[in-house]
């Protein structure tokens, strides 16, 4: 059954969608240490979305349609296994969106000719991640000691990845520099543009240039420093956010966005915040309102850019351009006032 490519135990395909943009370095190291080859699907392009839309139901969000597209792309790549984790909770006391909870079932139910699916249940409310990885490692013929060292190694890689991103790099830059010598000193990404803007949202919206129509690059072209959530200190995401005395957020991804925005606002770190939001994302629409109110009381420019598969580039660009211009003129007039 196992095709022996380079004497490995087999090839595991990881779709370049959803939490790929968060945990791929972790999973890649883990499976490679267990002696498997790891391939990711091709970068998102128009074909990905087209293929994905064919399988996914019409009303679902684009990130999921894109994920479907990536799964289809991997099927053509001679893989033995497809890694589709079931993310239930990734931080204590929170839940993921229901689509993550049912992800392996959704994929199995809609796409034919699938390779064997490795379904890892990640539920940090109930069990530490090590147990989830141990279970999966066993199914992949790993011995306890092998799994343990693969686990340690992958956590180390993940932590290094986070440190690199914290230094101000983009997802792709951080991922590419993982392969470099660890001794190499990390240079902080050069900043110093007149405007600094945070781009917050789910990793799969912020780090996938196809989905956000190259927003980060556009901002750079406009001489704007873009800060993403992963550029912020890791420890700020450890405290639970509080919306009000009575209201508590329990969405995992949104918890991160709220913590990040709260930190940015309280420490006055940016001139404005852009929230990239998927059309028809339930949790996002809830926290948009919360951030809007917070931004208003603190008098910090904020805009929510909604992306869907029909949005032309023009709409996004016009909004972002106007947003940046607004900040620039605001800063300039404040500067004049202070000087006068």
């Amino acid at each position, binding site marked *: 059954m196992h095709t022996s490519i380079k004497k490995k135990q087999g090839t595991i395909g990881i779709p370049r969608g959803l939490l790929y943009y968060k945990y791929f370095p972790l999973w890649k190291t883990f499976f490679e240490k267990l002696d498997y080859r790891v391939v990711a699907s*091709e970068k998102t*392009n*128009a*074909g*990905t979305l087209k293929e994905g839309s064919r399988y996914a139901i019409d009303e679902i969000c684009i990130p999921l349609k894109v994920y479907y597209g990536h799964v289809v792309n991997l099927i053509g790549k001679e893989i033995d296994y497809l890694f589709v984790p079931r993310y239930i909770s990734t931080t204590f006391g929170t839940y993921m969106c229901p689509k993550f909870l049912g992800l392996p079932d959704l994929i199995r139910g809609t796409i034919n000719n699938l390779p064997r699916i490795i379904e890892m249940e990640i539920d940090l409310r109930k069990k530490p991640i090590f147990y989830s990885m141990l279970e999966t490692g066993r199914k992949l013929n790993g011995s306890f000691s092998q799994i343990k060292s693969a686990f340690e190694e992958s956590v180390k890689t993940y932590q290094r990845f986070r440190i690199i991103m914290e230094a101000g790099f983009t997802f792709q830059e951080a991922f590419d520099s993982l392969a470099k010598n660890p001794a190499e000193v990390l240079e902080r990404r050069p900043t110093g543009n007149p405007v600094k803007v945070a781009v917050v949202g789910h990793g799969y919206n912020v780090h996938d*240039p*196809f989905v956000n*129509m*190259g927003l980060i690059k556009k901002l750079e072209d406009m001489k704007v420093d873009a800060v993403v959530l992963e550029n912020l200190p890791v420890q700020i995401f450890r405290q639970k956010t509080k919306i009000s005395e009575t209201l508590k957020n329990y969405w995992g991804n949104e918890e991160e966005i709220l913590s990040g925005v709260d930190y940015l606002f309280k420490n006055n770190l940016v001139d404005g915040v852009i929230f990239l939001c998927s059309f028809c994302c339930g949790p996002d629409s809830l926290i948009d309102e919360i951030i*809007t109110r917070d931004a208003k009381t603190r*008098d910090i*420019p904020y805009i929510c850019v*909604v992306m*869907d598969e*029909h*949005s032309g580039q*023009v*709409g996004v660009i*016009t*909004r972002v*351009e*106007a947003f940046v*211009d*607004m900040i620039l*003129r*605001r800063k300039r*007039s404040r500067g004049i006032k202070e000087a006068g």
Partner: protein
Amino acid sequence: METKLLENRLKESGSSGNLYLGIDVGSVSTKIAIINEDRELVFGMWSRSQGSPVQSTQESFGNLGESLDDDVGCRIMGVGTTGSARYLVKAIVGADIAKTEIICQAVATSFYMPGVRTILEIGGQDNKVILMKDGIITDFAMNSICAAGTGSFLDHQANRLGIPIEKFGDYAAKSEVDVVIAGRCTVFAESDMVHKQQMGHSKEDIIAGLCEALARNYLNNVCKGKKLNSPIAFQGGVAANSAIRKAFQKELGCEINVHKYFLVMGAVGAAMLAREQVRAENLKTSFRGFKVSETKFIPKAFNCQGCNNRCEITYVQELVGEIVARWGDRCGKWTL
């Protein structure tokens, strides 16, 4: 081509002095504004555009020739473009800057109406609200994908009822009965109108109802959750419609101001921003002159086969000459 000359004080302002040109090319109209060094409007023209932005701009320039002396082109020290086709037009005429409608509207309005707090702008295909304080934008919003309640919708309904859009205000003023039209969606609004017609309501009442529905829809969708402080300015082509203005006054309970330059406010802003830029950076304008209207431009398009994205690349080429603009790619390989 239907045109409206809003201002022409070029002759009285003398034959010297620097001028700045602003061009606003929208989905249904093209606006041209020329301001002097004191930011006063000396020439303003609105024309309905049919066809491509390139054609519209050229036609407008062609019409200008009749009203302008030859030397005006030489006195233009800076050119700014705005509107949905701002980059294309910038490339064609050799403008110095291309800015979004939001910034342009805000800059021009706060010059003509100092202290303005809210700008309602309803154009052909989109509508926006801009909130300001002390001449600075504090917040803005645009309609999302849906174009319900924009000028095009009114145009379409005017056609259907056989009433020129310019007469909408007069008709609505004669309305005696309140007729409620569902304004949430253009499609529903239309079927609701047909229904009301069949029930025997007069055209006057239906038009008044339609205008109120549009105003309501705009306030609920675009301005949702925003505090609209007065003074309020109302701009864009739809501001010509007195019935919509009245509907806003009724809904918001305060005076709605429509400045006499409301049609060209975006173009004026573009000219002002061009002036600001040229003066700040001591630029020499790259304006190609009004004779650009005689140059033949050919718009072309193709699908790039470089990757799976199959981007639609569009470009504009001079009949004899080089490519003036090219874009549409995600990767930047073709952008010029």
